[in-house]
Protein backbone atom coordinates (compact mmCIF):
# COMPACT_ATOMS: atom_id res chain seq x y z
CA UNK A 1 0.00 0.00 0.00
CA UNK A 2 1.29 3.40 -0.89
CA UNK A 3 1.65 5.67 2.11
CA UNK A 4 -0.02 9.03 2.18
CA UNK A 5 3.37 10.65 2.56
CA UNK A 6 4.53 9.02 -0.66
CA UNK A 7 1.43 10.24 -2.44
CA UNK A 8 1.96 13.75 -1.16
CA UNK A 9 5.61 13.66 -2.20
CA UNK A 10 4.68 12.38 -5.62
CA UNK A 11 2.05 15.06 -6.04
CA UNK A 12 4.51 17.70 -4.93
CA UNK A 13 7.13 16.38 -7.31
CA UNK A 14 4.62 16.40 -10.14
CA UNK A 15 3.46 19.91 -9.43
CA UNK A 16 7.05 21.07 -9.07
CA UNK A 17 7.90 19.55 -12.43
CA UNK A 18 4.82 21.07 -14.02
CA UNK A 19 5.63 24.46 -12.55
CA UNK A 20 9.19 24.21 -13.72
CA UNK A 21 8.17 23.23 -17.22
CA UNK A 22 5.81 26.16 -17.50
CA UNK A 23 8.57 28.51 -16.32
CA UNK A 24 10.99 27.07 -18.86
CA UNK A 25 8.50 27.51 -21.66
CA UNK A 26 7.82 31.04 -20.57
CA UNK A 27 11.44 32.14 -20.39
CA UNK A 28 13.18 29.94 -22.92
CA UNK A 29 13.10 32.53 -25.68
CA UNK A 30 14.63 35.28 -23.60
CA UNK A 31 17.27 33.00 -22.08
CA UNK A 32 18.13 31.70 -25.52
CA UNK A 33 18.25 35.23 -26.87
CA UNK A 34 20.73 36.31 -24.20
CA UNK A 35 22.75 33.15 -24.75
CA UNK A 36 22.85 33.72 -28.49
CA UNK A 37 23.93 37.32 -28.09
CA UNK A 38 26.60 36.27 -25.61
CA UNK A 39 27.99 33.34 -27.58
CA UNK A 40 27.21 34.34 -31.14
CA UNK A 41 26.66 30.70 -31.96
CA UNK A 42 23.26 28.96 -32.08
CA UNK A 43 24.63 25.58 -30.97
CA UNK A 44 26.51 27.03 -28.08
CA UNK A 45 23.52 29.18 -27.19
CA UNK A 46 21.29 26.11 -27.10
CA UNK A 47 23.77 24.26 -24.91
CA UNK A 48 24.09 27.21 -22.59
CA UNK A 49 20.32 27.63 -22.36
CA UNK A 50 19.70 23.96 -21.67
CA UNK A 51 22.48 23.78 -19.14
CA UNK A 52 21.12 26.86 -17.38
CA UNK A 53 17.67 25.26 -17.14
CA UNK A 54 19.12 21.99 -15.88
CA UNK A 55 21.04 23.92 -13.21
CA UNK A 56 17.91 25.86 -12.39
CA UNK A 57 15.96 22.63 -12.02
CA UNK A 58 18.55 21.18 -9.68
CA UNK A 59 18.47 24.31 -7.56
CA UNK A 60 14.74 24.86 -7.93
CA UNK A 61 14.10 24.08 -4.25
CA UNK A 62 16.36 26.96 -3.27
CA UNK A 63 14.54 29.36 -5.55
CA UNK A 64 12.19 31.44 -3.43
CA UNK A 65 8.72 31.61 -4.84
CA UNK A 66 7.52 35.14 -5.33
CA UNK A 67 10.96 36.40 -6.28
CA UNK A 68 11.78 37.06 -9.87
CA UNK A 69 12.41 33.78 -11.64
CA UNK A 70 13.82 35.41 -14.74
CA UNK A 71 16.48 37.34 -12.86
CA UNK A 72 17.45 34.24 -10.96
CA UNK A 73 17.68 32.40 -14.27
CA UNK A 74 19.73 35.09 -15.98
CA UNK A 75 22.09 35.01 -13.06
CA UNK A 76 22.62 31.30 -13.65
CA UNK A 77 23.22 31.96 -17.36
CA UNK A 78 25.67 34.74 -16.56
CA UNK A 79 27.64 32.67 -14.10
CA UNK A 80 27.70 29.65 -16.39
CA UNK A 81 28.92 31.65 -19.33
CA UNK A 82 31.56 33.58 -17.44
CA UNK A 83 32.82 30.39 -15.78
CA UNK A 84 33.05 28.75 -19.18
CA UNK A 85 35.00 31.67 -20.63
CA UNK A 86 37.43 31.49 -17.71
CA UNK A 87 37.79 27.76 -18.14
CA UNK A 88 38.60 28.16 -21.82
CA UNK A 89 41.16 30.80 -21.00
CA UNK A 90 42.94 28.37 -18.69
CA UNK A 91 43.13 25.75 -21.41
CA UNK A 92 43.51 27.76 -24.56
CA UNK A 93 43.55 26.10 -27.92
CA UNK A 94 46.80 27.27 -29.38
CA UNK A 95 47.16 25.55 -32.71
CA UNK A 96 47.71 28.07 -35.45
CA UNK A 97 45.37 27.78 -38.38
CA UNK A 98 47.98 28.64 -40.94
CA UNK A 99 50.53 26.26 -39.49
CA UNK A 100 51.17 23.35 -41.87
CA UNK A 101 50.05 19.91 -40.74
CA UNK A 102 52.82 17.36 -40.14
CA UNK A 103 52.58 14.04 -41.93
CA UNK A 104 53.83 10.57 -40.96
CA UNK A 105 56.84 10.75 -43.23
CA UNK A 106 58.02 14.05 -41.84
CA UNK A 107 56.58 16.20 -44.59
CA UNK A 108 54.02 18.92 -44.24
CA UNK A 109 50.72 19.74 -45.83
CA UNK A 110 49.42 23.25 -46.15
CA UNK A 111 45.90 23.70 -44.86
CA UNK A 112 43.32 24.91 -47.28
CA UNK A 113 41.72 27.85 -45.61
CA UNK A 114 38.80 29.82 -46.88
CA UNK A 115 39.57 33.43 -47.67
CA UNK A 116 37.71 35.16 -44.89
CA UNK A 117 37.69 38.46 -46.68
CA UNK A 118 35.48 37.08 -49.39
CA UNK A 119 33.46 34.37 -47.63
CA UNK A 120 29.72 34.51 -48.21
CA UNK A 121 29.12 35.07 -44.49
CA UNK A 122 31.37 38.09 -44.52
CA UNK A 123 29.67 39.54 -47.53
CA UNK A 124 26.34 38.88 -45.84
CA UNK A 125 27.48 40.52 -42.61
CA UNK A 126 28.75 43.57 -44.36
CA UNK A 127 25.28 44.26 -45.56
CA UNK A 128 23.52 43.33 -42.35
CA UNK A 129 23.83 45.42 -39.27
CA UNK A 130 22.80 42.55 -36.98
CA UNK A 131 25.89 40.64 -38.02
CA UNK A 132 28.06 43.67 -37.41
CA UNK A 133 26.50 44.25 -34.04
CA UNK A 134 26.92 40.64 -33.05
CA UNK A 135 30.57 40.68 -34.04
CA UNK A 136 31.12 43.87 -32.10
CA UNK A 137 29.36 42.43 -29.05
CA UNK A 138 31.58 39.38 -29.16
CA UNK A 139 34.65 41.56 -29.11
CA UNK A 140 33.70 42.93 -25.68
CA UNK A 141 34.91 41.36 -22.45
CA UNK A 142 32.14 39.02 -21.20
CA UNK A 143 31.24 41.23 -18.22
CA UNK A 144 30.74 44.28 -20.40
CA UNK A 145 28.91 42.27 -23.02
CA UNK A 146 26.46 40.82 -20.52
CA UNK A 147 25.77 44.21 -18.95
CA UNK A 148 25.08 45.77 -22.35
CA UNK A 149 22.88 42.88 -23.49
CA UNK A 150 20.84 42.97 -20.30
CA UNK A 151 20.42 46.72 -20.58
CA UNK A 152 19.88 47.31 -24.29
CA UNK A 153 18.38 44.06 -25.54
CA UNK A 154 16.53 42.86 -22.45
CA UNK A 155 15.70 46.29 -21.09
CA UNK A 156 16.73 45.80 -17.46
CA UNK A 157 17.52 48.71 -15.16
CA UNK A 158 20.99 49.13 -13.69
CA UNK A 159 19.70 47.94 -10.35
CA UNK A 160 18.28 44.77 -11.87
CA UNK A 161 21.49 44.14 -13.80
CA UNK A 162 23.46 44.59 -10.58
CA UNK A 163 21.29 41.89 -8.98
CA UNK A 164 21.68 39.54 -11.93
CA UNK A 165 25.43 40.06 -12.17
CA UNK A 166 25.88 40.13 -8.41
CA UNK A 167 27.70 43.42 -8.42
CA UNK A 168 27.17 47.09 -7.55
CA UNK A 169 25.22 49.61 -9.57
CA UNK A 170 28.43 51.60 -9.98
CA UNK A 171 30.11 48.61 -11.60
CA UNK A 172 27.15 48.11 -13.90
CA UNK A 173 27.27 51.75 -14.89
CA UNK A 174 30.97 51.47 -15.65
CA UNK A 175 30.56 48.25 -17.65
CA UNK A 176 27.78 49.72 -19.75
CA UNK A 177 29.69 52.92 -20.32
CA UNK A 178 32.86 51.12 -21.38
CA UNK A 179 31.01 48.48 -23.34
CA UNK A 180 29.04 51.03 -25.35
CA UNK A 181 32.14 53.13 -25.90
CA UNK A 182 33.91 50.13 -27.45
CA UNK A 183 30.85 49.31 -29.56
CA UNK A 184 30.61 52.90 -30.69
CA UNK A 185 34.19 52.87 -31.89
CA UNK A 186 33.61 49.71 -33.89
CA UNK A 187 30.22 50.60 -35.26
CA UNK A 188 30.38 54.34 -35.82
CA UNK A 189 30.22 54.20 -39.64
CA UNK A 190 27.11 52.05 -39.64
CA UNK A 191 25.01 53.72 -37.01
CA UNK A 192 24.35 57.31 -37.90
CA UNK A 193 20.81 56.83 -39.15
CA UNK A 194 19.72 54.70 -36.23
CA UNK A 195 21.13 57.21 -33.77
CA UNK A 196 19.20 59.98 -35.38
CA UNK A 197 16.02 57.97 -34.97
CA UNK A 198 16.59 57.79 -31.22
CA UNK A 199 17.29 61.46 -30.91
CA UNK A 200 14.27 62.40 -33.00
CA UNK A 201 11.92 60.36 -30.82
Amino acid at each position, binding site marked *: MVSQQTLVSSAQALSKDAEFESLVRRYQNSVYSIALRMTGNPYEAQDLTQEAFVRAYRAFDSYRRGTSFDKWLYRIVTN*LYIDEVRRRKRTPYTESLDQPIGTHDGGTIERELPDSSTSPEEVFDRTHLDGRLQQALESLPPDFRMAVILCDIEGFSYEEIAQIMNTSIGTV*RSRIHRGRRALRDKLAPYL*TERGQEVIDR
Partner: protein
Amino acid sequence: MMCSMVQRLISAYIDRELSEDDRSRVRRHLASCSECYAVYQSTAAVKSALASMTPVECPPCLWEGVEARISAAPLKAAPARYGGERFSLLRSAASFVKIVAPAAVVGALIAVPVVQLAFGIDLIGPMGARLAGTGAGSNSGVGVATVQADETPRLTLQSIVPAPAARAVSLTAASLGGGSDSLILGAFGDNHLVQLQLDPEDYFTRIGGSVRD
Protein backbone atom coordinates in the same frame (compact mmCIF):
# COMPACT_ATOMS: atom_id res chain seq x y z
CA MET B 1 31.07 70.10 -16.07
CA MET B 2 34.14 68.89 -17.89
CA CYS B 3 33.72 67.08 -21.20
CA SER B 4 35.44 63.95 -19.89
CA MET B 5 33.02 63.82 -16.96
CA VAL B 6 30.01 64.34 -19.21
CA GLN B 7 31.15 61.63 -21.58
CA ARG B 8 31.42 59.17 -18.71
CA LEU B 9 27.82 59.95 -17.78
CA ILE B 10 26.34 59.84 -21.26
CA SER B 11 25.37 56.18 -21.19
CA ALA B 12 23.65 56.57 -17.83
CA TYR B 13 21.99 59.74 -19.14
CA ILE B 14 20.59 57.86 -22.12
CA ASP B 15 19.42 55.06 -19.82
CA ARG B 16 17.78 57.56 -17.45
CA GLU B 17 19.92 56.28 -14.63
CA LEU B 18 21.22 59.65 -13.41
CA SER B 19 20.03 61.76 -10.51
CA GLU B 20 17.95 64.75 -11.52
CA ASP B 21 20.87 67.10 -10.78
CA ASP B 22 23.35 65.19 -12.91
CA ARG B 23 20.78 64.80 -15.61
CA SER B 24 20.20 68.52 -15.96
CA ARG B 25 23.94 69.23 -15.85
CA VAL B 26 24.55 66.78 -18.68
CA ARG B 27 21.61 68.18 -20.63
CA ARG B 28 22.92 71.73 -20.34
CA HIS B 29 26.40 70.68 -21.38
CA LEU B 30 25.14 68.76 -24.41
CA ALA B 31 23.25 71.82 -25.58
CA SER B 32 26.46 73.81 -25.75
CA CYS B 33 29.16 71.26 -26.66
CA SER B 34 29.14 69.78 -30.14
CA GLU B 35 31.84 67.24 -29.35
CA CYS B 36 29.94 65.74 -26.43
CA TYR B 37 26.73 65.93 -28.40
CA ALA B 38 28.33 63.81 -31.12
CA VAL B 39 29.35 61.26 -28.49
CA TYR B 40 25.80 61.30 -27.18
CA GLN B 41 24.42 60.72 -30.67
CA SER B 42 26.67 57.81 -31.46
CA THR B 43 26.12 56.22 -28.03
CA ALA B 44 22.37 56.52 -28.46
CA ALA B 45 22.77 54.95 -31.88
CA VAL B 46 24.51 51.95 -30.34
CA LYS B 47 21.73 51.47 -27.84
CA SER B 48 19.07 51.87 -30.46
CA ALA B 49 20.73 49.43 -32.83
CA LEU B 50 21.07 46.80 -30.11
CA ALA B 51 17.45 47.26 -29.08
CA SER B 52 16.32 46.76 -32.64
CA MET B 53 18.30 43.58 -33.29
CA THR B 54 16.06 40.94 -34.76
CA PRO B 55 14.43 38.99 -31.93
CA VAL B 56 15.39 35.36 -31.80
CA GLU B 57 13.32 32.36 -30.90
CA CYS B 58 14.77 29.33 -29.25
CA PRO B 59 14.81 26.06 -31.19
CA PRO B 60 11.56 24.13 -30.71
CA CYS B 61 13.39 21.12 -29.29
CA LEU B 62 14.91 23.06 -26.42
CA TRP B 63 12.54 21.91 -23.71
CA GLU B 64 12.82 18.30 -24.82
CA GLY B 65 16.57 18.47 -24.29
CA VAL B 66 16.10 19.92 -20.82
CA GLU B 67 13.44 17.39 -19.96
CA ALA B 68 15.57 14.47 -21.08
CA ARG B 69 18.36 15.60 -18.83
CA ILE B 70 16.36 16.44 -15.76
CA SER B 71 14.50 13.16 -15.94
CA ALA B 72 17.79 11.28 -16.03
CA ALA B 73 17.93 10.55 -12.33
CA PRO B 74 19.84 10.38 -10.14
CA LEU B 75 21.79 13.36 -11.25
CA LYS B 76 25.34 13.02 -12.35
CA ALA B 77 27.62 13.94 -9.49
CA ALA B 78 30.01 16.10 -11.44
CA PRO B 79 28.41 19.21 -12.87
CA ALA B 80 28.28 19.08 -16.58
CA ARG B 81 29.92 21.61 -18.78
CA TYR B 82 27.84 23.01 -21.50
CA GLY B 83 30.79 23.87 -23.66
CA GLY B 84 33.99 22.23 -24.65
CA GLU B 85 35.33 20.17 -27.45
CA ARG B 86 33.17 17.13 -26.95
CA PHE B 87 30.17 19.20 -27.70
CA SER B 88 31.08 20.42 -31.06
CA LEU B 89 32.30 17.00 -32.07
CA LEU B 90 29.09 15.43 -30.91
CA ARG B 91 27.17 17.74 -33.12
CA SER B 92 28.79 16.41 -36.19
CA ALA B 93 26.61 13.37 -36.44
CA ALA B 94 23.07 12.31 -35.87
CA SER B 95 21.84 12.21 -32.34
CA PHE B 96 20.38 8.78 -32.58
CA VAL B 97 22.11 5.52 -33.03
CA LYS B 98 20.20 2.43 -33.67
CA ILE B 99 20.98 -0.85 -32.20
CA VAL B 100 19.51 -3.83 -33.82
CA ALA B 101 19.82 -6.85 -31.63
CA PRO B 102 20.51 -9.72 -33.93
CA ALA B 103 17.54 -12.00 -33.92
CA ALA B 104 19.59 -15.08 -34.61
CA VAL B 105 21.46 -14.94 -31.35
CA VAL B 106 18.52 -14.39 -29.10
CA GLY B 107 18.00 -17.34 -26.87
CA ALA B 108 15.76 -18.18 -24.00
CA LEU B 109 17.85 -17.16 -21.05
CA ILE B 110 15.21 -15.36 -19.08
CA ALA B 111 16.02 -14.70 -15.44
CA VAL B 112 19.65 -15.57 -15.64
CA PRO B 113 21.29 -13.01 -13.37
CA VAL B 114 24.32 -12.41 -15.49
CA VAL B 115 23.59 -13.01 -19.06
CA GLN B 116 26.10 -13.69 -21.72
CA LEU B 117 25.23 -10.64 -23.60
CA ALA B 118 28.02 -8.33 -24.35
CA PHE B 119 27.93 -5.53 -26.78
CA GLY B 120 31.06 -4.03 -28.09
CA ILE B 121 30.40 -0.39 -28.57
CA ASP B 122 32.13 0.91 -31.55
CA LEU B 123 32.45 4.62 -31.77
CA ILE B 124 32.41 5.80 -35.30
CA GLY B 125 33.92 9.17 -34.90
CA PRO B 126 33.16 10.87 -31.67
CA MET B 127 29.46 10.68 -32.07
CA GLY B 128 28.00 7.78 -33.94
CA ALA B 129 27.95 4.80 -31.70
CA ARG B 130 27.30 1.45 -33.27
CA LEU B 131 26.36 -1.33 -31.01
CA ALA B 132 27.32 -4.64 -32.49
CA GLY B 133 25.68 -7.31 -30.47
CA THR B 134 26.99 -10.77 -29.90
CA GLY B 135 25.75 -13.22 -27.36
CA ALA B 136 22.34 -14.09 -26.19
CA GLY B 137 19.59 -12.42 -24.29
CA SER B 138 16.02 -12.81 -23.31
CA ASN B 139 13.22 -12.03 -25.66
CA SER B 140 12.37 -9.06 -23.61
CA GLY B 141 13.99 -7.52 -20.64
CA VAL B 142 15.53 -4.63 -18.93
CA GLY B 143 19.19 -4.64 -18.31
CA VAL B 144 21.70 -2.36 -16.75
CA ALA B 145 24.87 -1.80 -18.60
CA THR B 146 27.96 0.16 -17.81
CA VAL B 147 29.90 2.29 -20.16
CA GLN B 148 33.46 2.70 -19.12
CA ALA B 149 34.81 6.06 -19.97
CA ASP B 150 37.99 5.02 -21.63
CA GLU B 151 39.14 5.51 -25.13
CA THR B 152 37.27 2.65 -26.63
CA PRO B 153 34.16 2.39 -24.56
CA ARG B 154 32.86 -1.09 -23.96
CA LEU B 155 29.31 -1.60 -23.09
CA THR B 156 28.78 -4.69 -21.06
CA LEU B 157 25.46 -5.88 -19.89
CA GLN B 158 25.73 -6.73 -16.24
CA SER B 159 22.34 -8.04 -15.43
CA ILE B 160 19.06 -8.63 -17.01
CA VAL B 161 15.70 -9.03 -15.42
CA PRO B 162 12.55 -10.24 -17.07
CA ALA B 163 10.14 -7.53 -17.95
CA PRO B 164 6.70 -7.57 -19.46
CA ALA B 165 6.96 -7.95 -23.17
CA ALA B 166 7.44 -4.38 -24.08
CA ARG B 167 6.40 -3.30 -27.48
CA ALA B 168 7.79 0.13 -26.98
CA VAL B 169 9.93 1.45 -24.23
CA SER B 170 11.38 4.74 -23.34
CA LEU B 171 13.82 4.59 -20.52
CA THR B 172 16.26 6.96 -19.01
CA ALA B 173 19.78 6.55 -17.89
CA ALA B 174 20.76 6.37 -14.30
CA SER B 175 24.13 6.93 -12.85
CA LEU B 176 25.84 4.16 -10.97
CA GLY B 177 28.44 6.52 -9.65
CA GLY B 178 32.06 5.57 -9.43
CA GLY B 179 32.93 7.34 -12.61
CA SER B 180 30.91 5.25 -14.95
CA ASP B 181 27.60 5.94 -16.49
CA SER B 182 25.01 3.30 -16.70
CA LEU B 183 22.25 2.68 -19.07
CA ILE B 184 19.05 0.88 -18.87
CA LEU B 185 18.52 -1.03 -22.00
CA GLY B 186 14.99 -1.85 -22.74
CA ALA B 187 13.25 -4.46 -24.71
CA PHE B 188 16.05 -5.69 -26.78
CA GLY B 189 15.86 -9.09 -28.21
CA ASP B 190 14.06 -10.72 -31.02
CA ASN B 191 12.84 -8.23 -33.55
CA HIS B 192 13.40 -5.31 -31.30
CA LEU B 193 14.91 -2.14 -32.43
CA VAL B 194 16.48 -0.10 -29.71
CA GLN B 195 17.54 3.46 -30.04
CA LEU B 196 20.18 5.11 -28.00
CA GLN B 197 20.29 8.82 -27.70
CA LEU B 198 23.60 10.40 -27.00
CA ASP B 199 23.32 13.53 -25.06
CA PRO B 200 25.76 16.40 -25.28
CA GLU B 201 27.67 15.25 -22.27
CA ASP B 202 28.80 12.18 -24.08
CA TYR B 203 26.69 9.73 -22.22
CA PHE B 204 23.38 8.19 -22.87
CA THR B 205 20.27 9.67 -21.46
CA ARG B 206 17.43 8.04 -23.22
CA ILE B 207 16.86 4.80 -24.91
CA GLY B 208 13.76 4.32 -26.83
CA GLY B 209 12.92 0.92 -28.20
CA SER B 210 10.26 -0.27 -30.49
CA VAL B 211 9.24 -3.46 -32.12
CA ARG B 212 10.10 -3.68 -35.73
CA ASP B 213 7.20 -5.77 -36.94
